[in-house]
């Protein structure tokens, strides 16, 4: 034993050394590190669980969104159809009113044209009388005396006046 260097006191010292080392390492190294590892594992598990929950939530939300979109599309289609129907009614009404207005305008135009024509004819007749009078005056001035001339004119005026009335 002595030749191998084994001494009871040295042996005991090494036993105490190792026991102290186990206690120190347990307190300073193993417990904190194992706790940190466990905390991280828990955190990761928690994160994964949360992610899984979020995925389910997202799927639910997506389904809801799709349902809302489908409902909105349906509603929009219905509104468009209604609008189209309504627009067709309005269109027909507007066209009918336009036709009516057009007819009224045409009628009024015709009436105006008739009135204008009558007025024009009247003015033309007056003008013709004046021209005829002037021509007759010119002719008679060169052929007859003033007294006969006046008698003829008056006679003619009476005839014309009678014709016009």
């Amino acid at each position, binding site marked *: 034993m002595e030749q191998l*260097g084994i001494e009871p006191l040295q042996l005991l*010292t*090494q036993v105490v050394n190792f026991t102290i*080392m*186990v206690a120190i*390492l347990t307190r300073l*190294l*193993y417990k904190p*590190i194992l706790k940190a*590892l466990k905390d991280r594992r828990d955190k990761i598990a928690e994160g994964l669980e949360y992610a899984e929950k979020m995925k389910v939530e997202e799927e639910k939300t997506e389904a809801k969104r799709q349902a809302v979109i489908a409902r909105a599309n349906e509603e929009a289609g219905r509104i468009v159809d209604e609008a189209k129907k309504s627009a067709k009614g309005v269109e027909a009404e507007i066209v009918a009113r336009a036709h009516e207005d057009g007819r009224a305008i045409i009628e009024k135009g015709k009436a105006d044209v008739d009135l204008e024509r009558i007025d024009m004819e009247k003015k033309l007749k007056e003008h013709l009388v004046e021209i005829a009078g002037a021509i007759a005056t010119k002719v008679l001035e060169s052929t007859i005396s003033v007294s006969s001339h006046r008698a003829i004119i008056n006679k003619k005026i009476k005839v014309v006046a009678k014709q016009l009335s």
Partner: protein
Amino acid sequence: MPSIHISITAEKLFTIGGVLPVTNSLFTSWIVMGLLVIFSLLATRKLALIPGNIQSVAELVIEGIYKLFETVLHDKIAMFFSLIASLFIFIIAMNWVGLLPGVGTIGLRMLEDGHEKFVPLFRAGTADLNMTLALAIIAVLIIQYSGLRSLGTSYLKRFLNFRNPIYFFVGILELAGEFTRVISFAFRLFGNIFAGEVLLTVIAFLMPLLVPLPFLGLELFVGFIQALVFSMLTAAFLAQATAPASH
């Protein structure tokens, strides 16, 4: 001509209080303990969810040891983790510190029996039988205590079984095996590490340049393997001792 210094026993450096002789292996053991304490403090000083460099190393080592020995101890890992991890870390640290430059070469010239003698200041703790024997005794005592605690008096039936002569003989062999475990634990570790140191010393003495490098690598590997063997065997014996006997 220079000579090589090889001693199978650890050499005394000084005495504390005139009672406790401090050998170079004990002195180196204290240094290793100090380094491990400093490492532990640095690693766990600012524990964060996203670990820093030292915390990452500590987590890698601790988690690696935990998972490795969990395969042997299963649900009992939490109970024995401190012992097993300490054995592994302490032994590997001792083994590797013994390979550092200066260990075995830096020393004092001391007077012994009237003539001057070179005494290395540092010596790998596991290259001293006192250390390996102490670890072996602790391991075997804890194995026995755990067996008794887990199985009660039925644990003793492994060693004292009077059902028939064969079981009785097997029990005697088991009992002898428990004692030889101490010797095998202690001498395996001491033998490998001491032999490695001698090998490196001789190689470095004969061819100091480059040639020792492959042997240094080999000794690093041996240091790791011996730490693993010691702690793995302890774990296996613990698992065996705490499991119900098959006969």
